[in-house]
Each structure stands twice: as structure tokens, then as C-alpha cells.
């Protein structure tokens, strides 16, 4: 068993990659995938701590996160398809209708 710090390090790495993806990528699909990456990095951290503390609570939390992520993907991808059908592009910078 590797020490916990390695798992956490990987989790942080994945999270930062996800954040960078959200902030820097123009393709909405890639942004979406980056969000999934962040969710999974959080899952990894939860599982790691659960393993360390020999507790089952955090693992239950992970299942919740996975379920919700699945639901989110379903809705999000549907939205994405609709956006693409309208704009013929998935460039996130073209979606500025909320401009005040």
C-alpha cells in the first residue's frame, strides 16, 4: 500500500488539470470533460481518506458523486447537442447571451 500522500498528490494533479481545462479550453465538450475530471479527483481523495481511516462513510459519498455525475452528463450532453444544433459550433466563447 502506497502512502496516502501519493494518492492525494495524484488527486490534486487531476484537479488542477481539470481546473485548467475548464478555464483554458474553448471547446465546450472539453470543458465538460474537465469538470468530470475534477469530480473524479475528488472521488479519489474521498476513497483514499476512507481507506486510511477504515471508514465507509466517504465511500458512500463517492457513490453519490458518481450517480450525480452520471445524471449531470446526461443533462449536460443533451444541452450540448441542442447548442450545437443551433449554433453549429461548440465554442464556449460564443455563448454570451447572459451578457448584462
Amino acid at each position, binding site marked *: 500500500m502506497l502512502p496516502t500522500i501519493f494518492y492525494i498528490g495524484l488527486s490534486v494533479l487531476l484537479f488542477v488539470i481539470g481546473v485548467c481545462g*475548464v*478555464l*483554458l479550453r474553448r471547446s465546450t465538450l472539453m470543458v465538460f470533460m474537465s469538470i468530470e475530471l475534477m469530480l473524479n479527483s475528488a472521488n479519489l481523495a474521498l476513497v483514499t481518506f476512507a481507506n486510511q481511516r477504515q471508514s465507509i462513510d466517504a465511500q458512500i459519498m463517492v457513490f453519490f458523486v458518481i450517480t450525480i455525475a452520471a445524471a449531470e452528463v446526461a443533462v449536460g450532453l443533451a444541452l450540448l447537442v441542442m447548442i450545437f444544433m443551433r449554433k453549429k459550433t461548440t465554442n464556449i466563447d460564443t*455563448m454570451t*447571451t447572459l451578457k*448584462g
Partner: protein
Amino acid sequence: MTQISWLIALIPAFPLAGFLLNVFLVRGERANGTVASLSIVAAFITTVVAVINLAGMAEESRFIAITLWEWLAVGRVTVSFGLWFDPLTAVMALLITGVGALIHIYSITYMHGDSRPGRYFAYMNLFVFAMLILVMSDNLFLLFLGWEGVGLCSFLLIGHWFDRKNVAPGIVPSEAATKAFVANRVGDAGLLLAMMAIVSHFGTLSFFGSDGLSGFVSRLTDASFTTISLGAFGNVGLVSGIAFLIILGVVGKSAQLPLFVWLPDAMAGPTPVSALIHAATMVTAGVYLIVRTHAVFDLAPDASGWVVIIGATTALIGATAAITQFDIKRVLAYSTISQLGFMIAAAGMGAYTAAIFHLLTHGLFKALLFLGSGAIIHGMHDIQDMRRMGGLRKHMPVIFLVYIVGALALSGIFPLAGFWSKDEIIAHAWYGAQNINVTVILLLSSLLTAFYMGRQVALTFAGEVRDKDAHPHEDLGSMKWPLYILAVASVLGGLINLPGVHWLNDWLNPVLHQEAELFTLSMGIFAAVTVLLATGSGYLGYRIYSGPIGARITPGDEDPAHYYLGDIWKGFEMGWGLDYVYQRIFVKPYRTLSTFLHDVFDQQAIDGILVEGSAGMVGRFSQAVARIQNGNVRTYALVFLIGVVVLVGYVVIGA
């Protein structure tokens, strides 16, 4: 006893029911008029029955009192919704419901084709209700309800044609209505103060109390030496103070100097309204109030003196103004002011019976004259200017006949109603009060009365029609019988108080305690002289204006007398310039102040700074904030991230 009490409560209940029915249920011109007229006729029949019952009672306790419910109880002062029916109330109620019923019936034809008949008849009924409450209340507070009620109805009915911008001669109905309301309000303030003085000193507003002895009227003598402190202005006797405040109310409601200016303009309303409100009933409320509270004036000779001065001066001013008018209704309006002056002067001299006598006869023949002039206006298709009339005798023979009766009665020609009542007042000024100035003023006014009636009859009926485009016709419909009945009443009205017979005097004796004056030969000669003078003056007026001078008058002309009298005539025509003075002293400064306040405070401060300023500030702030909302999702995400970092950092470092 109990069923009689119940009966008098019915008298005001009928008009109220008519009002409510016309407001909420009855629709359609025909139905409105019928309901309104029937309710007043029912009230009249009830009044007659009540009067017959009253006449059968013992003279010492000849009154019917009924307390419907306790209205207010504030501290030790209680005000009941109580009705009081004594001989004085009886004659007033008979006049109101009798003449009122005739005018309602007349209105059915007169208001035919009007756009708002429901409104009209409802307000007319409400008016009669308010007037009945005024004369039937057993306390000042309820009287004030009626007092304000008639003022309100007057406002509503003068402004009945509020959508017309100009009724001849150049009066705007909505402005005339406001003017009447404001002028009345000035007087009402006086009456209100009188009520406060009475409450604070006597603790009750009831005239007589339920037993006829416990009201403030019977306790006035105890207070004859009480004074009210006016601070820097010294002290004034309580009773005189109350009397002066009541006079202020009377002056407003009865259109006396200096508040009569609203009455001529009130002619902007429909003619039956002028007949009912501005001749027969509402304006007589002031005379009634003085007579009802005559005990106050008996104890305040200084106030009574002022009443005489006000009355006599108003009689003269009204008469001089009436001779110069060309609008057929304005002549009658100024004439009403003048005749009210007679009544007020009589009341001030202590001749209360004569005042009420003249009130009754004047109510009859002035209603006749107004209804007659209404029939003329109806037949001339809304022409009111006498310069466009003339020669109507051929076209309107029936109206001519009844109008002549009314004119003779008003001029005080023997043996019509006006002669007996007016002569009684002038005779009282000469024999009773022995005041030569008042006698001369009243006599002069009476001569002018005959003159302007002669002038009016000549201008209206004699010669040829001046306006060639007019198509006069006589189509009376339901207006016919009220005119006939009032004409007969104007002839016979004097019978109720003939010298030597004096039924009215005996009838009012339980209330006013005035013995009829003995009829002497010198009084007869005096009356004969006045009647001869009046006849001569009336004939002169008729002769001048029916002759070649009158024939030359064309629409838009000045009166021929203007050529000789110049500005004096002009001054008469303007009602001695009182309107002008008010315009200058009150209306113009008020308008200027309002314009100033509107421009500076309303538009700049309230609109500019408070309303639009605060709205603008919020708007500008929002615009600044809205710039952050650029709609770029990645910017939002970055801000979100920074927020999370800051929060987590705060929690981690703070912990």
C-alpha cells in the same frame, strides 16, 4: 304616539330609498325619473299626515321627538341620531317635499335625453334627504350632517354637466361647482366652531333635549354672562360668539354678503336644480338655522344687528345686480340673493315669523320662476340670453301666463303671495324695529325687484324674437302640471298669514313665541304705498324694455342704461366687483403659489430629486454592476475559482 314617531322617521327614509334604488338597481331614464318622483311624493304625503297629527296635539307639547339610535358617545357628550318634528320643521318639510316633488316631476321632461339621468335623479333624491335631515334633526351635529349633505349635492348637481366646457354666459360647470363648494366651506367652518363652543360650554348639541327643556337652547340664559377669552383680542360674550359663528355659517349657505358669489355661477347646473337648490330649499337653510336657534340671537343684540346689516345690504346688492343681467337665470339668481337678504334681515330684526313666511312664499314663486325660465330655455333649445329672446308671448302662451304670475308675486303686487310676505318684513322694519335706514334699503330693493322683473318679462316676452335663427316652441309634457300648481300656490300663498288672520303666526307660536302684530290702518296705508311704488317701478321696467329702446337691443349689446350709468352699471353687473376682489386676493395668489410650488417643489424637488433622482441612481449603479456580467462562461468560472480559493484559504488559514 309611537306610530306617529315611526311616521316622521319615514319622511327622510323615502328619499333615501329613492336614492339607493336609483344608484344600485334602477336603470333607464323613464324608470329613474319615476322612482325619484314617487319617493318624494310619498315623503310629501307622509309629511302631510304627520302635520295633521301634529296639529291635533296640545300646544304646550306640540312636537314629536324620536331617537333612532345613539350616534356618537365621546366622553360625556353623546350625539343621538334623533329626529324632531315641531311646527317650524313641519312648514319647512312641507315646502321641501312639496316643491321638491313638483320639481322632480318637472325634471322628467326637462332632463329627457340627458346622458346621465340616473346620476341626476339619485343626487336630487339625496339632496332632498339631506335637506330633510337638516330641518328635522334634534341636534346641531345631525343638522351639520344635512348641512354638509346639501352642500355636497349642490356641488354634484351644479357640476352635472361637468363635461361641458362652457354654459352660457361663459361659466364652466366644474369650476362653478368647485366655487360653490369652497364658498360654502368657509361658512361651514364657522358653524363647526359654533358647535365646538356649544359643546365645550353646555356639554350637549341637542336643541331641546328629549323633553323639550334640557337642550342648550333652554340653558342659554344661564350663560348670558359667560365670556370666551380670545387672547390678545380681549373677551367676547359666549352667546355673542356663538351667534357670530352661526352667522358665518348662514352667510355661506344662504349666499349672503360677502359669500354670495357662488350662487350666480351655480346657474351652470340644470334649471330644475337651480329651482330646487338655489331658490326653494338649500339656500333657505341659513334662515332656518337662525330661526331654529333664535334664542341665541335674542340674547345677542350685537350679533342680530349685524344680521340685519348683512341681510339689508345683500338685498340691495342682489337687486342692483339683478337689474343688469342678460342671462335669464342669472337675473333670478341675483333676485334669490336679494330675497334671501330680506329673510335674513327680517330674522335679524326678530321678525322670525315674517322671515319664515317670506321663505315659504319665496320658495313657491321662485320655484315657479325658475321652472318657467327652464321651460323657456327648453323651448328655445338651450338659449339663455334674453338678448336673443323676445316675443315669446306668441310662441309660449302658457309659460307666459304662469311666468307673469311668478313675476307679479315676486314683485310684491297685491294680492299675490310675495306682497304679503315682503310687506310684512318692510312693515316690521318701519313699525317694529323702527329703523329708517333698513326700511329705506329694503324698500329700494323691493322697487328694484319690481323693476328687474318688469325688464325681464319685457325682454323675454314682448316685441319680436331678436334671434332670427331661434325656433321657439312650447312643448311642456310633464312640466305642465308643476307650473300650474306652483302658479296657483303663488297666487294663494299669502293666505297662510294674512293680516288679521295670521294662521302661520299661530301655527309657529309654540316654537317662536311671537304674537301676531295688530293690524292698524296706518299699516294698510303703508302697504298701499309700497304696492303702488312697486307697481310703478315694475311698469317702468316693462315699459322701457318693451318699447323702442328694448327693441333695439341685439345679441352682444350692452344694456341701454349702460350708456347713461357707465361704470356704475358695469359694477352692478359684476355683483359689485366682489368676484373680482376674490379673484385678486385669494384665487390669483393661490394659483401663483400653487404654480410656484408645482414648478419648484413638485417638479424639481419631488419629481426631480426624490423620484427620478433615486431611480436614476439605482439605474446608474446597475449599469456599473452589469458590466461585470459579460456573459463569458470562462470568466464566470475564473471568478468562481477565485472565490473558492479565497473562501478555502480563509477557512484553512483562519482555522
